[in-house]
C-alpha cells in the first residue's frame, strides 16, 4: 500500500528562497546557553540555537579503566556524540551509527587542543554530547556546549573552543545553516576555533565552493564563532559571576 503524506507546513519557519525569519546572510539563529544544568555530571551545559537543543556533560579528570588508551604523560579526552531517537523527524534507532562515531571523533579532536591534558597523566576526561532536538548544525552546537561544560567542570583550558558553520545556500554564502538550508544548499563548512588565537581546531566541508567562496565562508564562520564565544562567556558568568 502506498502511503501519501499531506503536510502544508512542512517547511514552517524556514522558507527556501531568502532566509527564514528575514535572517541576514551573516546572522546567527536565536540562541541561548546555560551552564551547570545537571546535578551528577562534574560539568554540564544546555544550548539552544534555532531548533537545536543540545545537552553536554563532562566527567573527569577521572581514572581510566581502559588500559590500552592510557597515556603515561597526559589525560585522554574522549567524546561521545549521540542523538535522541526523538530528535529528528523520522525516529532514529538508538545507539551509535557511522555518522555519530565520526562526529564523536572530530569533536574530541576539536576540543583537545584547548585542554591542559598534560596536567592529568593516566586519566580521562569524558565529554558527552546529547542531541535532544536537531535542526541543522548539531555538531557545532554540541562542541560549543561541550566547551562550556568543560569550563563548568573546572578543567583548565587555554581557551573555550567554539564552533559554527557557514555554507552556501540559494547561491549565496551564508552563516549558520538551518536544516533546510543545509539539505537544499550547495555547501556546508563547519569549523571550530580557539577564539583568543583564531586557530582552527575543526574543519569539515561538503558540497561545492570556489576558492573565493570558501574564503568568504571561512571568514563568515570565524565571525560567527566570535559572536557565539561571547554567549559562552556569558553563560559561565551567569553561573559563577564575573
Amino acid at each position, binding site marked *: 500500500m502506498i502511503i501519501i503524506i*499531506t503536510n502544508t507546513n512542512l517547511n514552517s519557519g524556514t522558507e527556501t528562497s531568502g532566509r527564514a525569519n528575514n535572517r541576514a546572510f551573516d546572522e546567527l539563529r536565536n540562541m541561548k546557553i546555560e551552564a551547570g544544568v545537571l546535578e551528577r*555530571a562534574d560539568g554540564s551545559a544546555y544550548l539552544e540555537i534555532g531548533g537545536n537543543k543540545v545537552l*553536554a556533560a563532562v566527567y573527569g579528570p577521572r581514572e581510566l579503566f581502559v588500559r590500552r588508551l592510557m597515556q603515561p604523560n597526559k589525560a585522554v579526552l574522549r567524546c561521545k556524540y549521540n542523538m535522541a531517537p*526523538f530528535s529528528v523527524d523520522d525516529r532514529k534507532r538508538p545507539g551509535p551509527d557511522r555518522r555519530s562515531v565520526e562526529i564523536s571523533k572530530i569533536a574530541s579532536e576539536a576540543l583537545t587542543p584547548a585542554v591542559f591534558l598534560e596536567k592529568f597523566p593516566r586519566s580521562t576526561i569524558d565529554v558527552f554530547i546529547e542531541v535532544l532536538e536537531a535542526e541543522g548544525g548539531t555538531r557545532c552546537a554540541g562542541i560549543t556546549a561541550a566547551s562550556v561544560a568543560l569550563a563548568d567542570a573546572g578543567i583548565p583550558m587555554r581557551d573555550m573552543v567554539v564552533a559554527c558553520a557557514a555554507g552556501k545556500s540559494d547561491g549565496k554564502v551564508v552563516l549558520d545553516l538551518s536544516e533546510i538550508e543545509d539539505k537544499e544548499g550547495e555547501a556546508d563548512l563547519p569549523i571550530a576555533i580557539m577564539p583568543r588565537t583564531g586557530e582552527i581546531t575543526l574543519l569539515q566541508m561538503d558540497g561545492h565552493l570556489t576558492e573565493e567562496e570558501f574564503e568568504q565562508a571561512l571568514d563568515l564562520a570565524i565571525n560567527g564563532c566570535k559572536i557565539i564565544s561571547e554567549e559562552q562567556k556569558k553563560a559561565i558568568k551567569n553561573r559563577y559571576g564575573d
Partner: protein
Amino acid sequence: MVINMVHIVPEIIKESVTNLVKNGERTDGRAFDEYREISLETGVIEKAEGSARVKIGNTQIVIGAKPQIGAPFSDTPNVGVLMTNTELLPMAAPNFESGPPDENSVELSRVTDRCIREGKVVDLDKLCIVPGEKVWMVFLDLHVVDYDGNLMDAAVLGSVAALMNTKLPTTKIEDDELILDYDNMIPLPINDTALMSTFAKIGGEMIIDPSLEEEEVMVARLSVGITGDGSICAMQKGGEQPLNKEEILKAVSLAKIKTAELRKLLP
C-alpha cells in the same frame, strides 16, 4: 547502557542513613511518605509528536513519543503497537557507560511499559488503520539525563504526560492509498492515567521516592502502578532482601493516595 564499576557504599553511610530512618527521619528531612520536588513540562521537543521533561528532585528524564505506520503483530491484527525504550545515558551518572541496554535499563523500560500497557493508558484498539496490515506504532523513548534515584516513578509520570501530549495525523484510505494528513492532527487516544509510586525498604520502614543515597542503602524496593480508578495495574519488587505481607499492603495503600496526588501534575 552498561553500568560498570560496582559502586561501594561506605558502611558508615549505610549505618547513618539506616539509623536516621529508624528514628523516623530522612537525610534530606522529608517525611516517609513525601516526594521530592517534582516538575513536569510537556511539548519540549517540537520534532517529536509528543514529549515531556520530568524532574523528581535531581533525577531528570526527557521523553519523546514518535508514531510510525507499521504492521501489527500477527496475533493482534486489530491493535496498535506501543514500544518503550530507555537509554541510561552515560552523562546521567559517573558509573553509567555507553553500550547496548543492560539489565537495569531493560527493567526500567519493561516496568514502565507494563504500567502503561496494563493501565490501558493508550487506547491501542483505536490505533488500527487497516486490520492486519497497517497500524500506528508509538515509540516511546526515555532519555535519562540525570540520575539521582527513583527512575521508575519519573519514567511513568513523564511517559504518561508525553503520551497525553502526543498528536497523530488523521488517516484516510482512498483507492487503496493511505493518506496521512499532517494538517489535521488529532490527540493520541488516551483511556487512563496509570501512575507509579516506588518505595524503598530501609531499617524496616517503607519510604517513598528514594533518593540516590537511599537507593544505595535500601535492602528492597517495591514499585506499584495504580490506575485512575485506584486499581493496581503493575508491580515490581527489586532488591536483595525479602518484603513481608504487611510492608507490601502498606505500600499499596499508600501508593493509591500518592499516585492520586501525582495525577494532579498531569496536563
